[in-house]
C-alpha cells in the first residue's frame, strides 16, 4: 500500500495529535518504568519503598528468597505450558473444522468461541467454581488447568483459523491428487505450513494463562499462582523480588514477541499483508481478542 493512498499527507503535520499520542504512551509506560527501576532499588526492608537507596542487583541474586513466591511462579509456568499445549492440541482440529468445512454446528461453535472471548472473567470464574462445586471436584491445580484450557482453546481457534483461512489450499489438493491420504496430507503439507500459527497460538495461550488472575482466583483452591501471590501481598507491600519476576516476564515476553513477529513475517510475509489490511497489528492475546470482536 503506498503512503499516498492511505491518506498520509506529509504536508499536514499535526503536532497536537502527535504530542497527545506520545503523552498517553508515556503515561502508560509509568508502571513499566517504575517496576523495572524499583527492582534495582537497594531498600533496607524486604518491601518496596518509594525512597531511592541506590542501585543493586541484590534482589535478582536473591530471587528465590521469598517464601512461596518461587513456588507460585513455577506453578504458573507449569499451568501455562500444559494448558498451552493441550489447548493447541484440541483447538487446532477445531479450527480445521471451522475453516475448511460447512456443517450444522459451525455457527453455534463460532458463537461459543466468541462468547468465551467476550465473557467477563468474573462471571466465567464464578460460574466455573459453581460448576466444580456441583460436580464435587476439589479445586486445585487440576481445576486451574481445566479452566485455563477452556479460555485458551478459544484464543487458539481464533489465531489458527485466521491463518488457515488465508492459506493456499491448492497445495493440499495437489498432495491429495498425488495420492496422499488425509493423514499424510495433514502431517506432510498442512502442519508444516501451519506451524508458525501453532507456535503463535501456543505463545498466546501461554501469555493468557500466566497473566490470569480473576478466573484463577475462583478455581485455585489452595494452589497459588504468580498473579494470586502478587495480589495477596499487594495490600501489605510487594517484596522487591516480585518486581524482579515481573521484569523477567516482561523482558522474555518482549524478546519472544519480537522473534515471533519476525518469524511470522518471514513465513506469511507479503501474502498476509496484502490480503488483510490489519495484518500489521502485533500479535498478542489482547490484539487477537480485539480482532475477534471487530
Amino acid at each position, binding site marked *: 500500500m503506498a503512503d499516498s493512498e492511505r491518506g*498520509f499527507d506529509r504536508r499536514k503535520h499535526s503536532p497536537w495529535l502527535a504530542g497527545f499520542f506520545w503523552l498517553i504512551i508515556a503515561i502508560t509506560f509509568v508502571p513499566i518504568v517504575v517496576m523495572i527501576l524499583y527492582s534495582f532499588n537497594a531498600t533496607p526492608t524486604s518491601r518496596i519503598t518509594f525512597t531511592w537507596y541506590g542501585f543493586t542487583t541484590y534482589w535478582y541474586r536473591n530471587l528465590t528468597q521469598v517464601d512461596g513466591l518461587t513456588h507460585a511462579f513455577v506453578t504458573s509456568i507449569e499451568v501455562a505450558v500444559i494448558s498451552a499445549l493441550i489447548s493447541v492440541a484440541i483447538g487446532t482440529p477445531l479450527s480445521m473444522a471451522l475453516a475448511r468445512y460447512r456443517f450444522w454446528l459451525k455457527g453455534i461453535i463460532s458463537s461459543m468461541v466468541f462468547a468465551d472471548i467476550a465473557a467477563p472473567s468474573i462471571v466465567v470464574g464464578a460460574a466455573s467454581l459453581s460448576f466444580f462445586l456441583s460436580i464435587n471436584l476439589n479445586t486445585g491445580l487440576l481445576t486451574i488447568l481445566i479452566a485455563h484450557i477452556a479460555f485458551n482453546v*478459544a484464543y487458539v481457534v481464533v489465531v489458527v483459523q485466521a491463518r488457515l483461512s488465508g492459506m493456499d489450499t491448492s497445495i493440499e489438493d495437489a498432495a491429495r491428487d498425488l495420492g496422499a491420504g488425509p493423514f499424510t496430507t495433514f502431517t506432510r503439507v498442512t502442519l508444516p505450513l501451519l506451524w508458525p500459527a501453532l507456535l503463535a497460538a501456543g505463545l498466546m495461550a501461554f501469555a493468557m494463562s*500466566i497473566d490470569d488472575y480473576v478466573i484463577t482466583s475462583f478455581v485455585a483452591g489452595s494452589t497459588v499462582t*504468580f498473579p494470586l501471590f502478587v495480589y495477596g501481598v499487594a495490600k501489605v507491600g510487594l517484596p522487591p523480588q516480585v518486581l524482579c519476576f515481573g521484569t523477567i*516476564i516482561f523482558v522474555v*515476553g518482549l524478546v519472544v514477541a519480537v522473534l515471533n513477529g519476525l518469524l511470522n513475517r518471514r513465513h506469511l510475509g507479503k501474502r498476509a499483508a496484502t490480503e488483510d489490511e490489519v495484518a500489521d*497489528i502485533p500479535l498478542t492475546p489482547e490484539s487477537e481478542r480485539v480482532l475477534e*470482536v471487530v
Partner: protein
Amino acid sequence: MTDVAVRPTTTTSPAKSRRPSWLRRHSSPYALSLLGGGWMLAFFLVPLVSGLIVSLETGNPISGYHLTWNWAIYKQLFVHSDIPYTTFFLRSLYYGAASTVIAILIAYPMAYFIAFKVRDRWKSPLLFLVLLSFFVSFVIRIDMWSFVLSNQGIVITALRDMHLVSKSFHILGTSNAVIGGDVYNNLAFMVLPIYVALERVDGRILEAARDLYSNGRQVFLRVVLPLSRAGIFAGILLVFITTVGDPVVSSLLGGVNTYTIGQAIQDSYLTNQQFNVAAALSTALMVVLGIIMFIYARVFGTQNIENLV
C-alpha cells in the same frame, strides 16, 4: 460475526480424484470439533448455566447447599438486603460507562494518529507501543499505579510540595482512581478496534469528500467518524464488559467507597463462602450485561453485533 468466519471457505469438497465416502466427508468436521468444542461446552458453557442453578440453592457453608429453586434470592439480594448489592451494581455500571467514554475520547485521537498521520512502516511499531503494557503482569501493573499514586508516592508528594493540593488530598480510594485505572487498563482494547476501522476507510472516499468542498472538520464528522462506528462499538463492547465485572482495579486502587459488584462476587464466594449469593450476583451481572448489549445493538445496530445476539 467475525472477520474470519465470514470469509468464504475455500474448499468445501476435497479433490475430485479421492473423494471420501459420504459418511466420512460429513462426519469429519464433527470429529475434528469433538475435543475442542466439547471442552468449551463442558467447561465454559455448561458452567455458565450451572451458575444459575447454584444461585437457586439454599443452605450454609457448613452443612452444604441443596437445590430448592429458591428464586426469592434475587429479590432478597436486590430489593431488601442488609448489604447494598444494588448500589454495588449501579456503581460498577457507572465505573464501566465512565471509563468506556473516557477511553473513547483518549483512544480515538491515538488510533487516528496511527491510521492517518504516520507512514505505513511506523504503524506496526506504534501499535506495539500501545500494547507494550500487556507484557507486564496485570496485577503488578495495577499495583505499580497504587505505588506511584499512594500518599507517599511521587505524584502526591510533588503536588503537595508545589502547594497545588491540600495536605489531606489523596487519589487512592476515590472513584476517580478506579475509573483512571480502568481506562489505563483497557485503553488498548479501544485503540485497536478503532484503528482497524479507520484503516479500512477507503482513502478515495476522503478525497471525494474533499473534492466536494467539505472542510477538514466536515470530512471528519460526516465521513471518517461514521465509517469508524463499528470500531467504536467493538471497543465499547470490550471495555465495558471488562470493566464492569473487574474486581482487581477497584480493590487495589479503590477503598471502602468504591466497592464493586466484582469484589462482592469474589468476597461472597471466597471469603464468606455464600455460594448461592455469589452465583446469583454473577448470574445477574451476566444477564444485565447481556441486556445492555442487546439494547445497544438494537439501537445502534451495527452489523457485527447483530449476528451474535
